């Protein structure tokens, strides 16, 4: 193609400039990995890899640090957020593609995407001032007196409802990722060939049957990719959870307890860490988070690409 035309010196120069610009992405990724490894080398040397990941210590007095508590917080908030967000998002996608009357499809789609545009700091502040009191005074006591009474699950809702806990943080996080999942699910649904759907309707299938038997199986790879993408997003969210998580380095059995995620720990402690090991451990956490989300996002991308390839755009 165009590459054969490169004879003009200016063209050669221009192509080189664009190539360098394109490589900046690789440079940034390698730069991040390199810098984070360099900065955390002190902590890596002191705590090792698996020992760091599994240690529940976060003790600045004895300078003993581990990532287990923050990884716990990160995973619990993320998973719980997905549990709330994924069914909702798929419901929204079904509504927008199959159920809503045509004049509503556009506006609702846009409204949901606006939800994605609201900055995370707004979610966080709103969460602290508005949602947390509602959680503490109404929702959490209600949960305690219902599901909290059940055996086994009950343990998840023990403690004082404070509104500043894993549960509130997960709810906010779920509101944030609903739009991502919903819009990818919607796009995947739209890839289902109309002919197939129409023939199903033709033989008398109901809307739900078409969704369940035709659309969902057809688009499952794409939807799955969307879910994993949201997972990646949720892992790295900082501000929305920083306000309402309570920054406590502990592994708890109750969702009504305060906890800490990697991101929140970085936001709170990064400028304030006083010893070298402390700061290095924070860089180490950043590295762990970067690798975690990079891998998750790469998996998401893999599925989305496969979905795209299989059905074509």
């Amino acid at each position, binding site marked *: 193609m165009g590459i054969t035309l490169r004879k003009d010196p200016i063209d050669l120069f221009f192509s080189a400039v664009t190539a*360098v*610009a394109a490589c*900046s992405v690789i*440079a*940034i990724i390698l730069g991040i990995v390199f810098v984070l490894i360099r900065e955390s080398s002190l902590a890596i040397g002191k705590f090792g890899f698996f020992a760091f990941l599994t240690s529940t*210590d*976060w*003790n*600045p*007095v*004895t300078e003993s640090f581990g990532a287990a508590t923050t990884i716990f917080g990160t995973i619990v908030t993320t998973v719980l957020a997905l549990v709330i967000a994924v069914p909702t998002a798929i419901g929204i996608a079904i509504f927008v593609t199959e159920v809503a009357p045509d004049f509503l499809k556009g506006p609702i789609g846009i409204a949901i995407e606006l939800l994605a545009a609201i900055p995370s700091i707004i979610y966080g502040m709103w969460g*602290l001032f508005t949602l*947390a*009191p509602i959680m*503490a005074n109404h929702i959490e006591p209600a949960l305690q007196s219902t599901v909290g009474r059940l055996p086994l699950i009950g343990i998840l809702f023990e*403690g*004082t409802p*404070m*509104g*500043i806990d894993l549960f509130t943080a997960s709810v906010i996080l779920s509101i944030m990722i609903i739009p991502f999942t919903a819009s990818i699910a919607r796009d995947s649904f739209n890839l289902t060939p109309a002919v197939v759907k129409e023939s199903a309707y033709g033989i008398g299938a109901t809307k739900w049957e078409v969704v369940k038997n035709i659309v969902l199986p057809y688009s499952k790879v794409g939807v799955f990719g969307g879910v994993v993408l949201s997972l990646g997003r949720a892992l790295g969210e900082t501000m929305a959870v920083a306000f309402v998580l*309570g*920054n*406590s*380095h502990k592994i708890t059995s109750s969702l009504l307890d*305060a906890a*800490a995620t990697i991101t929140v720990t970085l936001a*709170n*402690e990064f*400028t*304030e*860490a*006083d010893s070298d090991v*402390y*700061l290095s451990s924070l860089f180490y956490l950043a590295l762990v988070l970067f690798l975690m989300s990079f891998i998750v996002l790469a998996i998401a991308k893999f599925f989305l690409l496969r979905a795209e390839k299989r059905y074509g755009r």
Partner: protein
Amino acid sequence: MQILLAAALTASLVLPFATVHAAEKLNGAGASFPYPVYSAWAYSYNKATGVRLNYQSIGSGGGQRQISARTVDFGASDAPLTPAKLKKHNLLQFPAVIGGVTPVVNIPGLQAGQLKLDASTFCSIFLGKIAYWDDAMVRKANPALQLPHKKITVVHRSDGSGTTAIFTHYLSETCPAWKTTVGEGKAVQWPKGIGGKGNEGVANYVKRTKYSIGYVEYAYAKQSKLAHTRLRNRSGSFVEPNFETFSDAAKTANFNSKRHFHLWLTNAPGKKSWPIAGATFILLAKEKKVVNRKTVQFFDWAFKNGDKTAQRLVYIPLPAALKNKVRAYWKSQGI
């Protein structure tokens, strides 16, 4: 590389423009404990001299870290650094103002100063050994109060904090169980509770969480209208946190400029002494002479003109003799 290049390019374009507007500036960061008084001083200092002293409240740990990394012009810390540590990072240290750490509670119906706590009760609450407000130990000191059977929510600091250092120093001094299980420091491994960022964060969480207890610098308790408690001091009397009890604790202090004023004011022996008082310190990078002169000019101005502001915010200005000691210290360090 790309980015750096682009940045350098844009920088060279804009720099001349920026410097035209550059007024005298100083950047400090650290302890949130004295943030209200430093920012009030800086506000008036700016009106009086035009110098912009930007003080950011990021916690004492942050103050020590950022001045050691030389990313700010001065650091601030409530926990005094030992002479050995100062030497290691090539820092200078002097006290700027004295204040007190105050326990604050949020129990609906309870007024400020009603709840009385002694050191071991207080310590047991933070250790998680006392879980409910109507625990026998709490009731013993407060026979007249109707305390609810509600779980106590402990609020502590999440960041490296001098307030925590003073607070845990006090707990370690007065409560053996604390000393052995938790210890003291700017950040510790808390047995229980939720963590707020800065004095601001703790005050905010206590305000928003019913049946909670936390500890903040007194100015924060006052300005955010939180209920403080009374504490039993070393001489055995229950005292209120106020100007008088803080001053009483400060009176016992004997600062030594040879040790860069390294001193704790907790658990002072005076009859009226507030048990968790503390000085807050300024840290300077020893080699930055020019910047230090400007910083010191600010504090000299504050020593002369800032006492009223400090008192209004319930900080204790340094006694005149100590101010002169600090001035002599500046001189001896060639500032």
